[in-house]
């Protein structure tokens, strides 16, 4: 019986996580004095915006049925490129941002290219490339810090537009773009079809190889975007950007309903998942848990996410009892 109610919550992906989020926020507001303060909410929203983009980065690769273990490394590289451009070359930040996004895309695309060409497991390729990219990053920049970030650039993270933090607007726009991509475009369909069944996609005339390459490229692009926004927020570019992203990049989409097996993504769910991760971490701070335990919590939540994913998957392929609207949310 418990399984059934659990199943009901899990089944309607968005309802489930929205409910938990609302519950969490309510409890926090009631029981802690710091949660609902302007300062705290502002910080939470800014973090959650960036994490949402990190989550989207992994979500895209999950959508095509693969994994990208290099999200952090690609982000780090793109970030450092941005830092170099801004500080060493004095390039206007808009151009620096665009170049960084392009770098992210290229690094990701290369990864996808290798995967398709060699037919080697995406996991090991992205793992190996993660260290190649990271090592390259560290060596080339000698682990420098770039602190002379123009104020106009920092303003992106600090600023508000009509009362809404600019970072949040960035994440909404990104979400919108990708929602349109996956819901309304042919390209998005191709990616999802490849994610469900790459072979069937080939037989249907969809080039699964190009879908995979593109998905990895987009994943890299989003990682680059997250890196650039992080630099704006920190006011500095450093090689450690991205080092903590891997776990969150999985937790956010999976909690939000994206399936590990591929072919089904949830953009809104990924945002909510990122929100959940951010708020839970915030909760730990407010409740007074030592900051050192945070990673343990994140890992625990990721395990929970896997368990939930397994339940979802078994329900999807069940004996025809459950009707889940497949595809996109």
């Amino acid at each position, binding site marked *: 019986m418990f399984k059934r109610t659990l199943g009901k919550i899990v089944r309607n992906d968005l309802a489930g996580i929205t409910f938990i989020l609302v519950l969490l926020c309510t409890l926090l507001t009631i029981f802690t004095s710091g949660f609902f303060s302007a300062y705290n909410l502002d910080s939470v929203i800014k973090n959650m915006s960036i994490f949402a983009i990190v989550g989207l980065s992994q979500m895209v690769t999950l959508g095509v049925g693969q994994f990208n273990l290099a999200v952090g490394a690609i982000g780090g590289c793109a970030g450092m490129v941005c830092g170099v451009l801004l500080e060493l070359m004095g390039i206007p930040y808009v151009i620096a941002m665009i170049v960084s996004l392009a770098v992210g895309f290229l690094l990701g695309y290369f990864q996808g290219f290798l995967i398709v060409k060699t037919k080697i497991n995406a996991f090991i390729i992205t793992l190996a490339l993660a260290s190649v990219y990271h090592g390259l990053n560290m060596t080339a920049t000698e682990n420098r810090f770039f602190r002379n970030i123009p104020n106009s650039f920092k303003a992106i993270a600090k600023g508000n537009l009509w009362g809404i933090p600019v970072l949040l607007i960035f994440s909404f726009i990104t979400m919108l773009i990708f929602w349109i991509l996956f819901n309304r475009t042919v390209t998005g369909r191709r990616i999802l079809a490849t994610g469900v069944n790459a072979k069937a996609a080939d037989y249907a*005339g969809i080039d699964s190889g190009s879908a995979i390459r593109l998905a990895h490229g987009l994943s890299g692009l989003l990682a680059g975007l997250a890196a650039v926004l992080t630099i704006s927020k920190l006011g500095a570019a450093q090689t450690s950007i991205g080092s903590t992203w891997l776990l969150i990049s999985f937790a956010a989409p999976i909690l939000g309903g994206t399936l590990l097996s591929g072919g089904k993504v949830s953009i809104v769910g990924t945002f909510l998942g990122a929100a959940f991760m951010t708020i839970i971490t915030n909760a730990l701070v407010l409740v007074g848990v030592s900051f050192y335990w945070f990673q343990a919590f994140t890992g625990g939540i990721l395990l929970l996410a896997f368990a939930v994913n397994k339940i979802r998957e078994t329900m999807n392929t069940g004996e025809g009892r459950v009707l889940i609207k497949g595809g996109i949310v």
Partner: protein
Amino acid sequence: MMKNNILELKDITKVFPGVKALDNVDFSLKKGEVHALVGENGAGKSTLVKILTGVYQPNEGLIFFNNQKISLLNPREAFTYGINVVHQERNLVPTFTVAENIMIEQYCEKMTSTINQKKINQDAKKYIDLVGLDIEPTKNVEELSVGKKQLVEIAKALSSDAKILLLDEPTASISVKEAEDLLELIRKLRDKGVTFIFVSHKLEEVFAIADTVTVLRDGKNVKAAGINDVYVPIKDLTRDQLITMMVGRTKEFKAFEDRDFSDKEIVLEAKMLRSVDSPKPKSFKIYKGELLGWYGLVGAGRTEFARTLIGYDPPIEGEEFINGEKVVVKNIKQMQNKHKLYYLSENRKEEGLFLDHTIKVNISSSILNKIKNRLGMLNFKKEQEVANKFKEELDIKTPSINQVVNNLSGGNQQKVSLAKGLSVEPDIFIIDEPTVGIDIKTKAEIHRLMYNLTKEGKSIICITSDMQEIIQIADRIVVFKAGKIKGELKNTKVYGEMSKRIMKLIMD
């Protein structure tokens, strides 16, 4: 019930959603005999095998072992009764040696036991010699040919004291010489007291090796004319009788009209075409508006040849002509969009459909280019129209086109698969095993659909292993065997005559 039956199955019925795979089937096995289980693709052989090996449990019916009632709830239980299976796919550990694979049950019994490599090699040698393999026990299994791997599996079964050895299509992927050796081995082992169940649809082998035979068709036992037992000694049957039992006409035979295409244009022609997976050069042609049948046993190489034609496994030698023009085959997309050639896979679940997606999304997956507007955005209205159109036309039974395909019955899934292909509006449609595992009513619907398509001027290549189906619907029949085309027949639609002629081509 005969007294010396080591195994007996009575009134076995097995039902899946929409399909009755086995209908009151009887099966008896005497100790020390080679018993052939025969039938076409989809006749119910593999379901019966799965029940014998504990993978499935029957909905109705009883199983007796040495006259004792038993139930086989999982493969391990079947194993404890001494029922060993050598499947079509290999179940060996590729990185282990021959000896390590053969003796695996013995040394893996307890986790703490030590491995005495020498003893394993020695013990294994006994069984290696028994099956006539001329290799060292220390050879790595992954370096062996398919035929030798099979012998290793037989040796493994013998090492665990197998009483009943079930061989499932053992000669499907081995050389002629290896097949002969295998049959010789079976004789030798039978004389030593091992009981065999030999599943096959190669009649020449059945006659060569089997003592008795059980024939299945459409999930039921087939009795030989004049003999009242389902369990028949081979020596009491003639070749013709067995052929009739296997592919004999049933009451529902209703063929389409005779048509002649000799004056029509050739839409697709292959000349000495070969590819990596279809290495023997083949030639054929198909006319406009024709329904061409490709008949062959499983493993005959038809699917591989189709994959060559459509560009999934592009040709490396030979020529392909479409509408008289020579084509350089590059990939599926090109063949589909430019040359209107579409291939529908036989494995609809693994290669044909996106099970987690909806009917609507599946149907539109091949024509994404046609339902988009300038910006690359999908035109939902058009997608819905297309999906609904096919839902009506093909009579797909579903409450809505937003149903996830995984939840549909086999027949409806096949219809979605067909719709997916039809949406491309192909001129040449290659359909691989269109009605396998599908109920009779839907089968007829699909046949009618294919026929109507040809009346509209489309050409269809129907790949099937169902003798009755091909004689009912095809205008001409191309017969495949072991990767080669053995011959081409004009279909007279007269069942007895055609089935004999086809089988003769295959058995030569």
